[in-house]
């Protein structure tokens, strides 16, 4: 029983990382119908920036928030400079552009910081904490708390602020939003900025565990895709629930089902992705869209 709880919590922690990145993907997909293949690399890049700040002696939490701020500006800049020229064209073109961005950022990471693995300080001490007689990793609890807090703050933003409402309007009906005076282009940029921040959060939380290298987020991106599809590509709540569910499920499968070795975690996640796509593409929380024909 103890092990079960520990595995659940640990699963929730990795799930929190997947959920953040999945939420980033959904944010962008909802507003532009674009699947941002570069989301993981954007997260890696911002995590490197955090590492650099730490390397220059900036204290941890200052570097943390500075990185989030940088990530926001970074996301906005990428949308305005790289994505905007392609907004009116076919979706396939934008997909290729995000792939180009993926390759570009991956190379940039290695070029600026080198390809060797770097260690990354955790926000939380690594000692265990005792809750109800069960030992949990403080790191895991911290990651879960941060992820949930981030999601909650985002929810508050979208629900209660004027800009949040405008962003939702721009995603739901851009033409009408323009008529009410909303600058839809900038709302898209804001979406990318927020998504970038979520990605940065994801990277900052996983770097202490898997160490920082240019390919750090590639696997996480796959899990994030699986989580986003599981929850429903158009549903932010779905992305979060999907991420947490996926994290727990993978952990429990890995612990209790013996044919599932660690290398199989990825294919299992992909299997989940494929099954969802085949059975109910709109995911747990999505509404099935009617495709005539």
């Amino acid at each position, binding site marked *: 029983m103890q092990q079960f709880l520990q595995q659940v919590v640990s699963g929730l922690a990795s799930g929190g990382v997947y959920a953040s990145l999945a939420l980033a993907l959904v944010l962008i997909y909802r507003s532009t119908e674009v699947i941002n293949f570069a989301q993981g690399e954007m997260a890696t890049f911002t995590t490197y920036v955090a590492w650099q700040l730490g390397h220059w002696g900036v204290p941890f939490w200052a570097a943390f928030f500075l990185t989030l701020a940088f990530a926001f500006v970074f996301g906005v800049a990428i949308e305005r400079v790289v994505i905007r020229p392609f907004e009116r064209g076919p979706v396939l073109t934008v997909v290729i552009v995000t792939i180009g961005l993926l390759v570009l950022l991956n190379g940039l990471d290695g070029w600026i910081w080198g390809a060797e693995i770097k260690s990354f300080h955790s926000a939380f001490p690594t000692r265990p904490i005792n809750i109800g007689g069960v030992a949990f990793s403080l790191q895991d609890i911290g990651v879960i708390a941060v992820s949930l807090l981030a999601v909650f703050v985002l929810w508050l933003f979208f629900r209660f602020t004027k800009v949040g409402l*405008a962003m939702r*309007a721009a995603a*739901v*009906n851009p*033409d*009408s939003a323009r008529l*009410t*005076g*909303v*600058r839809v282009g900038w709302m898209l940029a804001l979406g990318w900025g927020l998504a970038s921040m979520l990605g940065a959060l994801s990277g900052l939380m996983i770097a202490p565990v898997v160490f920082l290298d240019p390919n750090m987020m590639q696997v996480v991106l796959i899990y994030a895709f699986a989580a986003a599809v599981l929850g429903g590509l158009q549903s932010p709540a779905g992305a979060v629930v999907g991420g947490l569910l996926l994290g727990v499920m993978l952990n429990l499968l890995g612990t209790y089902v013996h044919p599932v070795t660690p290398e199989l975690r990825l294919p299992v996640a992909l299997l989940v992705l494929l099954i969802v796509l085949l059975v109910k593409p709109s995911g747990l929380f999505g509404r099935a869209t009617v495709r005539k024909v």
Partner: protein
Amino acid sequence: MPLLELGDVEARYGPIVALQGVSLSVDEGQVVAVLGANGAGKTTTLRAVSGTVRRTGRIAFDGQDLGRRGPEAVARLGIAHVPEGRGTFVELTVWENLRLGAYTRSRGANLKADLARMVDYFPWIERRRDQQAATLSGGEQQMLALARALMARPRLLLLDEPSLGLAPLVTREIFRIVRELNEQEGLSVLVVEQNANLALDAAQHAYVLEVGRVALDGPSEELRSHPSVRKSYLGY
């Protein structure tokens, strides 16, 4: 000086020319109707004003040339466009739709008072404020779209085919409210409408468009008795 003035406006959708030189004007405090058959260019005229479609020619609002402004900028000048099909944010709640309408208003503005005004005009809003707009009937959505536009406290309201798909009773109510707003608050309105009867009732002046051009214009009473208008649009 008229509030809105269109001079020789041309607009096209790709190779199709929708407006071939339309000139019209709306005075402050006036309700002006634009009549015409399907495809005559009525909706395009409104789109040209709100900046939704690219056009050549001169459009001046309050003497100021609108130039190449897009819809966001035009909205900020005080022009509110209720588009064809209403453009409701169906996934947002009724209240959120209204709040969005007031997007261009500055921070200090008294939104609560305006929201209360809308409830006055459309009492059912209070009951359904937290419902998703998609659950509203066609008539309610039209009223919501109108209320959304009014939240911006516009100087000019562009109203596109308010009767489309609505029961006659509902349409009559909408036009009554439009007339009331015009008489009591001096709201200027440019309304595009296929139902010539209702439109000529509400408007002081009207234009008839045919194939992208102004074929006829004049005060409503004159147009009412004009033989071709009677035959083509009023049915008798």
